[in-house]
């Protein structure tokens, strides 16, 4: 079998050529399935809805992940210490608690996550006009986007004060030239957005099975009232008007169906989600199967506060002690706060008294950093709440968080009214009456004292002090510096290569 050499040559060349002909097209690999391209997405209502959920996702910043709003704000108030395992456990909280907070200790996510929400809202707002879908639904999506965007701006402006106002997508050419806006302009935009959104939203959520957690007119109106209350250009009258519409007759059922729960402690029963007192509620679930890998990433749906305020190495030796799940001992109450709440009817629902349990020999626990023995009962995790679904149980607590509840709007309205008058008195009385306390003459000081007890551990106290100009005095012993610590430092990374200017005195 002798062939000519040339035949071999052609044979081999043939192989060469046949393969060489797989040209450039072979380099164009299909994008992986499951990762859509932006240019092909937002084609229908279902896709638009996922875009809307991505905006709602940011609400978890209140109570999800390690750097969550509520434990942070608690740490900076006079009611709590930062706590945790040691002086270095959670540098953000620790430094806020002792007022050494700086641009390098402020967790960047408090800035970044809210802007992520704003970006997602702006993205959907830009895409919505071209998405073929039901017009009413489209209007509702749009209203939710601008209301959420307003809320994110509100959190940013009240924390950092000098922040960029982002109401559209930023072109590539302007990425590094964005500047901070005047706070007044930001408040104006927030109020405009909320007012506009209010009327396009459902009056209240009727399909609760499917839609609980989405925002209604009542939610946004309460938020608008709150924003007016914070607005530095004194819009307290407007605040009172909006909040009155939310509150209705003190102690009664409002037009939105809001009503104080008759039993204060029922507010902290996990199954009481979306109860009649709840106005702006952050939902959590134990079905997110969150693991350490995705904790704080947006795909986690657990309530982190539970784990954070749980007690380190808690072991009960007596069955009469509560069956708490262990945690990390953050946000212990100060002794001073204990002294003022110990006789209040809300004490048992507010404070987990580890000190007394330990003294009775019913439990042992590790005395964490700044341990006082008094922990935050409202969010104290029970073993029975510990998720046994996938992921890590400690990251999948399902307790919802009420960011605004009716008692809050009552007291905010009373405050907006200047703390005087019959309506202010009635609002205060309704809050006190619910826990069986008698009426006392209303005043701003009394309202603030009431708020401190009513909302202990819910993240309101620090803002209450700052908003009413009391922070410098009350927090002086913590190291609060007037003219500096009323707002947070802007995270260091935001200043690198940008036009962003650090807040005064940081």
């Amino acid at each position, binding site marked *: 079998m002798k062939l000519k050499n040339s035949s071999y040559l052609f044979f081999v060349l043939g192989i060469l050529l046949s393969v060489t002909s797989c040209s450039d097209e072979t380099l164009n690999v299909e994008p992986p399935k499951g990762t859509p391209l932006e240019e092909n997405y937002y084609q229908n209502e279902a896709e638009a809805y996922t875009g809307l959920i991505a905006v709602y996702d940011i609400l978890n910043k209140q109570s999800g992940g390690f750097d969550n709003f509520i434990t942070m704000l608690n740490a900076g108030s006079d009611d709590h210490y930062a706590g945790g395992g040691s002086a270095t456990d959670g540098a953000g909280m620790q430094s806020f608690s002792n007022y050494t907070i700086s641009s390098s200790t402020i967790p960047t996510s408090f800035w970044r996550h809210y802007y992520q929400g704003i970006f997602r809202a702006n993205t959907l707002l830009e895409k919505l006009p071209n998405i073929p879908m039901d017009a009413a639904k489209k209007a509702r999506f749009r209203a939710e986007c601008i209301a959420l965007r307003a809320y994110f701006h509100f959190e940013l402006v009240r924390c950092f004060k000098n*922040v960029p106002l982002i109401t559209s997508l930023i072109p590539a050419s302007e990425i590094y030239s964005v500047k901070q806006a005047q706070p007044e302009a930001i408040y104006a935009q927030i109020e405009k957005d909320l007012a506009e959104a209010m009327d396009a939203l459902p009056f209240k959520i009727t399909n609760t099975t499917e839609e609980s957690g989405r925002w209604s007119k009542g939610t946004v109106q309460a938020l608008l009232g709150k924003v007016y209350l914070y607005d530095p250009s004194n819009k307290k009258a407007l605040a009172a008007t909006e909040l009155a519409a939310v509150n209705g007759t003190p102690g009664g059922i409002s037009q939105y169906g809001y009503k104080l729960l008759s039993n204060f402690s029922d507010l902290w029963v996990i199954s009481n989600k979306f109860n009649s007192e709840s106005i702006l509620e952050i939902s959590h679930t134990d079905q997110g199967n969150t693991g350490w890998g995705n904790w704080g990433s947006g795909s986690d749906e657990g309530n982190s506060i539970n784990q954070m305020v749980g007690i380190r190495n808690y072991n009960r030796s007596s069955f009469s002690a509560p069956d708490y799940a262990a945690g990390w001992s953050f946000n212990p109450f100060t002794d001073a706060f204990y002294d003022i709440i110990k006789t209040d009817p809300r004490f048992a629902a507010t404070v987990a008294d580890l000190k007394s349990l330990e003294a009775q020999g019913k439990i042992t626990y590790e005395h964490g950093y700044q341990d006082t023995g008094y922990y935050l009962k409202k969010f104290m995790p029970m073993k029975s709440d510990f998720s046994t679904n996938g992921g890590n149980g400690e990251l999948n607590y399902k307790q919802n968080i009420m960011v605004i509840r009716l008692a809050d709007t009552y007291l905010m309205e009373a405050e907006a009214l200047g703390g005087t008058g019959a309506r202010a008195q009635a609002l205060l009385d309704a809050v006190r009456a619910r826990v069986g306390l008698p009426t006392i003459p209303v005043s701003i000081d009394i309202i603030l004292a009431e708020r401190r007890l009513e909302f202990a551990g819910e993240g309101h106290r620090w803002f209450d002090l700052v908003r009413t100009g009391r922070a410098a005095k009350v927090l002086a012993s913590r190291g609060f510096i007037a003219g500096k610590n009323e707002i947070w430092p802007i995270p260091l990374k935001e200043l690198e290569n940008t036009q962003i200017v650090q807040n005064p005195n940081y």
Partner: protein
Amino acid sequence: MKLTKLFMLCFLSLLFSVYGQAQDIVVKGKIVDEKGFSIPGATILIKGATKSTVSNIDGDYETKAPRNGSLTVSYIGYNSVSENISGRTKIDFKLVLTSQELQEIVVVGYGTQKKSVITGSISSVKAKDLEDLPITRIEQSLQGRVSGVFIAANSGAPGSSSTVRVRGITSLGNNEPLWVIDGVIVDSGGIGFLNQSDIESVEVLKDAASQAIYGARSAAGVILITTKKGKAGKMSVSYTGYTGFSSPARKLKMLNATEYATLNNESRAASNLDIQFPNPESYGVGTNWQDAIFNKSAFRLGHDVSISGGNEKSTFYVSFGMLDQEGIVATDVSSYNRKNIRLNSTHKISKIFTFGQTLGYSREKNIGFGSNNEFGGVLSSAINLDPITPLVETDPTKANASPYNNAGVFRDSHGNPYGISRYVAQEMSNPLANMQTMLGNYGWSDNFVGNAYLEAEPIKGLKFRSTMGAKLAYYGGESFTPVFFFNSSNSNSINNLSSSNNRGFGWNIENTASYAKSIFNHNFTVLIGQGHYVDNITNGKGVTYRNLPITSYKDASFNYGTPQADIDGYAYVGSERVVNSYFSRLNYDFKEKYLVTGIIRRDGSSRFGSNNKYGTFPSFSLGWVVSKEEFWKENKFVNQLKLRGGYGVTGSDAIGDFKYLSTIGGGRNYTVGTSGSVTVGFSPNAPSNPDLKWEETSQLNIGFEARLFQDFNLSFDLYNKKTTGILQDIELPGYLGSTGNPSANIADILNKGFDLELGYKKKIGAFNIAANANVSYLQNEVTFLGNGITFLSGGAGYQASTYPLTRTQVGQTVNSFYGFQTDGIFQNQAEVNAYTNPTGSLIQPNAAPGDFRWKDNDGDGAITEKDRAFIGSPLPDYTFGLTLNIEYKGFDVLAFGQGVTGNKIFQGLRRLDIANANYQTTALGRWTGEGTSNTFPRLTNNDPNNNFSNPSNFYLQDGDYFRIKTIQVGYSLPVTAIEHAGMSRARIYVTGENLFTFTKYTGFDPEIGGGIDKGYYPQAKTVLVGLNVQF
């Protein structure tokens, strides 16, 4: 086995076939080597008869030949010998090995070259350098043996990979060299399947002039691995076996219970807290957690058998290997097992066609636990747990009370629970209990890597070759997590059983044509080629079943009829990566004196957008063998000298897929409605960057090779390597609101240094001495990070510290340590009060005597983050290795050591947020009063001066070390004693690994890849005995 037998029979029958010839005389004889061993399969060419025969298995031959003709005997690797017959009927031949130095062949990618004419910078390790060394992973065979390559084991756990860096940190992203095994590109994660005994040679292409033939993926270096092939003729059977025991080389010195209690009290008292241990002495020595987990006699066993041989037409190499290795830490959950089979063969199909193939298969089983992690686990727990908690609680009243009455508390064989610490909880757990939860867990992988080629040589010198290579890997793991209770913060109430299965596949086709021709001393070799590479054809699935009706891993099974609600599953597919390439190379030399090499390669990658799919990578290099010049007088000092230099450009596409597109990402979920089920959210990820392109590395290399004083071989290379347009995810300002960061070509890095290799070989009387030394020096500097950007945010994090530990900044080494600088300790309040700024206020108002004085580097009168400075580099300046071989009669001794100097290690072993965590004994030297210490501060629980929470030079230690990696003493039985058994070699040896380490570092092990020690699994000290037998 049957197949192999058949295979061997075929070859043997070929060997014995002798061609008969008429009319001439019969000539017989024996062919032997220098030592008198017979050489079967040698070719005997009868001059004037254009025919040949081969020697039989005993080295005998018999042929008919013209009475006045001549015989030429040749055998691969030996010099040919000719004899005139002159009427003789018996002629014996003795063949002498060809000189290795002159003929050394180096694999250069798509071919081989004589070492003497190479113009690039290539370091090799050959099989003979590694023979008989019980090396378990291929990277270790390079460590300390080649210059310009830094290697550090990632862990001392059996089967662990190593960090490999060729000439420094080339990029900010991927710095893994390209591994090419017999022409098949495998990622570095996939080289663990190789069996060291199968390796013929490892070549490291270090400069661009030699790397450029691999173009787009070669910038971080190329490592070519060639597996053994059979040799025509002599069949060889070889067995190597070894066994021995490992023990920890070093333990940390931790406080004992009394010391711990004392220091804990002191620390609490300093923070005005009640003391916990009123009577420290009552605790005695307490528990040594390290002793509980370290194994002083971890077993290791290896067997390798190979059979190779063949004839003029076909050769084969078959091998089987197995390795069993136990870890020295928590041996029950730390071990490695590997089984290998390899079959390589070549076949000359006809005069023109040659077919060859290689195929390796391995099965690996890996049992291990995570280490170098401050968040718990066996090692971290042993370091952080208090010594007061007992290993096992034997007091029956305590053993049945809280917390030991919780479900999931593990007990020893006597029914006593493993001690649970009251003081140190969180992720830290009793390591003996921790081990119980990992029993039965393992990871596995099956790897098939092979290639096949067809080569045609239609006219002499012209070769066409088509090669197809593929790598198929199956890998996964099985794990069972029982119900456990380590402490109340760390427990699991529902058991689960998980299994995962992944498949990865990659293949490539390469076609080359080469032509070699010599015209009047002008020698040319031209190569052109084309390649198509596809990899990451990957998918995988995993499943977890919860709540099985069992308590032990022994009963774990997926067959329990678990309800759907308790089953979780996942699956994924990877995205393919495709590269298309065209390449060519020209080698030219004149009289092997003037040498020229030119390479150009063009690569297209699926990782880039249409405007930048293709990149071109040229290189050019020259060599001049000065010692071949007429004017070069033969002298005793410089016997040979070659100068060479080259310049070239290589690339890297080592970045994620589809980074040039704007994609939508999931996981932005929220819970809507009352069912509690999660609603999925999607939104755009990072903005796209359609202009992404290759990062390019250009390298200039100048060097020489020389033989000096007859016995010394010296090679020296100077290089300057600049990477530009490094692909990097850039962190956008937060107000943009993107999730994830886009990639861009930013950053330039410069690596420069030298590589030096010196070899010595001498026979002095009955002594054969060989020594090799190598030294590499490297300087790494970031030269550009984008307009107006002086440093990159981020860097390695450390526990809960707000400050990144490392920073990449222009003018500095990549990822240098960045932190505060201590300036002694305040000995008294007066010193605190004296440390003031110009306005008279205290620079450290929170400080007390015993606290660090921090350097106020920016001079603003306060200690802020701006006072941080560069405090050290994790990269060594010098890496070096030293090998010494001495043979004396039947004895041989090998000593091999390697080390590094100039790097720093950040020792972050202690958990800062666990106030009760134990300390190392260095804490005994803490400040306790004026004049007691100027380096270790006072202990306090709240640490108001951030003595411990500030990353600072306090945590840095010199990483310099020199380690005697191997000492081996062997004895080969005299040939006369083993000949009758058909053996050609029988050797026994004793090996000691890591017996001595010289270092000042106080951690487990200075040989760590990353520079931050969070509790690395330490390297073991091992003593092995072994046996080599050859037939």
